[in-house]
C-alpha cells in the first residue's frame, strides 16, 4: 500500500476507534440521549398540530429541520470544538510528528463526524417512523435521495468545522462565539418555520449559508409536493440546492487543508506546554 493510502485507511480506522470510544463514555452517551429526547418530546407535544393555513403536520415540517440542525451542530460546532481542544492538548502535534500523520488525523475526524451524525440520524429515523404519520410517504427513491443529501450536507459542513476549529485559539472561544453564530444561522435558515415569514434581509442572509439549502433539500424529499407553497418562489429549487451545497463543499475542501497546515506549522512542544500552563492556571 502506498504511504498516502495507508494514511487514509489508518485515518478511517482512527475515526472508527474514536467513535467506539465515544460510545463507551457516559457523558457522550448522555449527549446523544438528551439531543434525541428533546426531539421526541417536541414530536409528542405537536403530534396533532398543523402549519397555519395548511393541512401540513407541523412535525413533518420540523423533522427535516431537526436533521439539518443536528448535522450542522455535529459537523461544524462539534468538530470545531474538538479540533481546537485537540490542538490545545497536543493531539495535533503528535499527528504532525508521524509520517502523513496530518492526513490521517483529518481523515479520522471526517470519519468520526460522519459516524456520529449517522448514528444520531438513525435514532431520529426510528423515532420519527413511530411518532410522525406519513413521514416516509414519498417512497424508497426519496429516502435514497435523503441519504445522498445528508452526505452532500456533511461535505459542505465538515470543512467549515475544520476552518473554524483552526481559526479559534482554544475550545472556550469556540464554545462562546461559535454557539451563538450557529444558533443565529439556524434561526435565519428557516428550519422550524417557513423562511418566507422572516423579513427580506434575513431571508437574503439565510440563503448565503448552506444550512438553509440543506433544510430546503431535505424538505423537498420528505414533504408532499403540495407543501412547496410555503417556500420562496413556491419552488424546491433542486438545482440551486445542489449547486450551493456543492460550491460550499468545494470551497471548504480547498480551504480547510491550507488553514490546517498553517495551524499545524505553528505547533511545537513548547506551544502545547504554554497552553497547558494557561489551562491549568484557569482550573
Amino acid at each position, binding site marked *: 500500500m502506498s504511504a498516502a493510502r495507508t494514511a487514509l485507511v489508518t485515518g478511517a480506522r482512527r475515526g472508527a476507534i474514536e467513535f467506539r*470510544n465515544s460510545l463507551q463514555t457516559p457523558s457522550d452517551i448522555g449527549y446523544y440521549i438528551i439531543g434525541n429526547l428533546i426531539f421526541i418530546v417536541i414530536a409528542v407535544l405537536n403530534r396533532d398540530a398543523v402549519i397555519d393555513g395548511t393541512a401540513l403536520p407541523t412535525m413533518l415540517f420540523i423533522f427535516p429541520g431537526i436533521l439539518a440542525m443536528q448535522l450542522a451542530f455535529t459537523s461544524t460546532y462539534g468538530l470545531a470544538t474538538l479540533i481546537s481542544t485537540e490542538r490545545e492538548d497536543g493531539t495535533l502535534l503528535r499527528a504532525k510528528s508521524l509520517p*502523513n500523520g496530518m492526513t490521517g488525523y483529518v481523515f479520522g475526524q471526517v470519519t468520526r463526524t460522519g459516524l456520529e451524525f449517522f448514528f444520531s440520524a438513525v435514532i431520529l429515523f426510528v423515532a420519527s417512523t413511530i411518532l410522525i404519520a406519513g413521514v416516509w410517504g414519498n417512497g424508497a427513491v426519496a429516502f435514497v435521495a435523503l441519504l445522498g443529501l445528508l452526505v452532500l450536507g456533511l461535505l459542505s459542513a465538515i470543512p467549515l468545522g475544520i476552518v473554524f476549529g483552526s481559526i479559534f485559539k482554544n475550545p472556550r472561544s469556540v464554545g462562546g462565539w461559535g454557539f451563538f453564530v450557529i444558533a443565529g444561522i439556524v434561526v435565519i435558515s428557516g428550519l422550524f418555520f417557513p423562511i418566507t415569514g422572516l423579513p427580506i434581509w434575513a431571508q437574503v442572509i439565510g440563503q448565503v449559508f448552506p444550512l438553509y439549502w440543506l433544510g430546503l433539500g431535505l424538505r423537498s424529499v420528505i414533504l408532499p409536493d403540495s407543501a412547496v407553497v410555503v417556500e420562496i418562489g413556491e419552488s424546491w429549487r433542486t438545482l440551486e440546492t445542489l449547486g450551493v451545497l456543492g460550491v460550499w463543499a468545494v470551497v471548504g475542501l480547498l480551504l480547510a487543508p491550507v488553514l490546517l497546515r498553517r495551524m499545524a506549522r505553528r505547533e511545537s512542544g513548547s506551544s502545547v506546554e504554554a497552553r497547558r500552563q494557561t489551562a491549568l492556571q484557569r482550573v
Partner: protein
Amino acid sequence: MHDPTAAISVRDLQMSYGDHVVLDGVSFSVTTGEVVALLGPNGAGKTTTIEVLEGFRQPSAGSVSVLGADPLTAGEHWRADIGVVLQSWRDHARWRVGELLDHFGRFYAPYATADRPRPYPVDELLHMVGLAEQGRSKVISLSGGQRRRLDVAIGIVGRPRLLFLDEPTVGFDPMARRDFHDVVHRLSDLEGTSILLTTHDLSEAEKLADRILILNNGAIVADGSAEQLARDVAGTTEVRWTTDGQRHVHTTDDGTAFVRQLFEQYGDTVSDLEVRRASLEDTYLAMVADSAIVAAERIGS
C-alpha cells in the same frame, strides 16, 4: 558545508523573539549512532534547539541539517526516520495503550526496509518500556511515570534512525529511570539509533551520553565526553590550609605545584590542609546558579 554522514549538523544557529535572544550562534554535530546530551539549566535554549531540529520551529538564522535534509522542507520519508518523544498531557485519554501504539505504528509500515522493519511489534515495545501489563488499560488510567513511558514508546514505534528526547525522565522514580536508561542503551547499541536528548540533570547526562554539550545563555559552552569535560571545564583545584590560626583558601590550575611551593615557603606551620579538585558537578552547579540569578533579576526587573 554540512558533513553528509552526520546525523545532525548545526551551524551558527540563531533564534530570537523580538529583542529576546534565545540561541546565539549554536554549532555542533552528532555522528551516526552517537548518544548526545544537551545539558543546561532551564531557559538555556535546549527545547528551542531540539524543536528547530525536529522541524517544528523556524530558526531566525543559521543552517541546520538533520539526516542530510533541512527539517523545515524535508518530506514524509524523512519524518518516518525521525522519532520524537513529546510530553503528553491529556491527548488520546480514551484510547487503550496497545491500540494507540498499533495505530501510530501503522503510519510507518510503508517506510519499512530490510534492515529496519517497521513498525515495532506492539507487544515487544510494551515489554521494552515496562508497560506489558497496561496494554489494555486506557491512557487516562496511567500514572504519570507510566504515561511518560508510553510517550517514549510512541517516539520509537517507527524504529527511528534518529530519536529526539526532550527532558525524558522528568517525573520518573529511580526504578523507572534505570529502566529508561536500559531502553536508551538498547536503542543505541543494538539498533544503531542516533539520539539527542535534553536534560538539566548532569548525572543523567553522564550515564546516558557518549558526549555532553553544555548549553548556557543560548550558546554551547562545553562539548566533550564526561571525562573530557571534567578535565577541561572543571580543571581548577581548591586548596585550603591554616597557618598560625589563620584560614586560607586559594584556587589554582595546578594543585600539586601549589602545595609543593606552600610547604617550601611555610614548612611545618601549615596545618589542616585540604586539596580538592572541582568536579564537573561543581562547575555545572555554579553555572546553573548564575543563570538562576540572571533569571531572578529578569523577573524582578
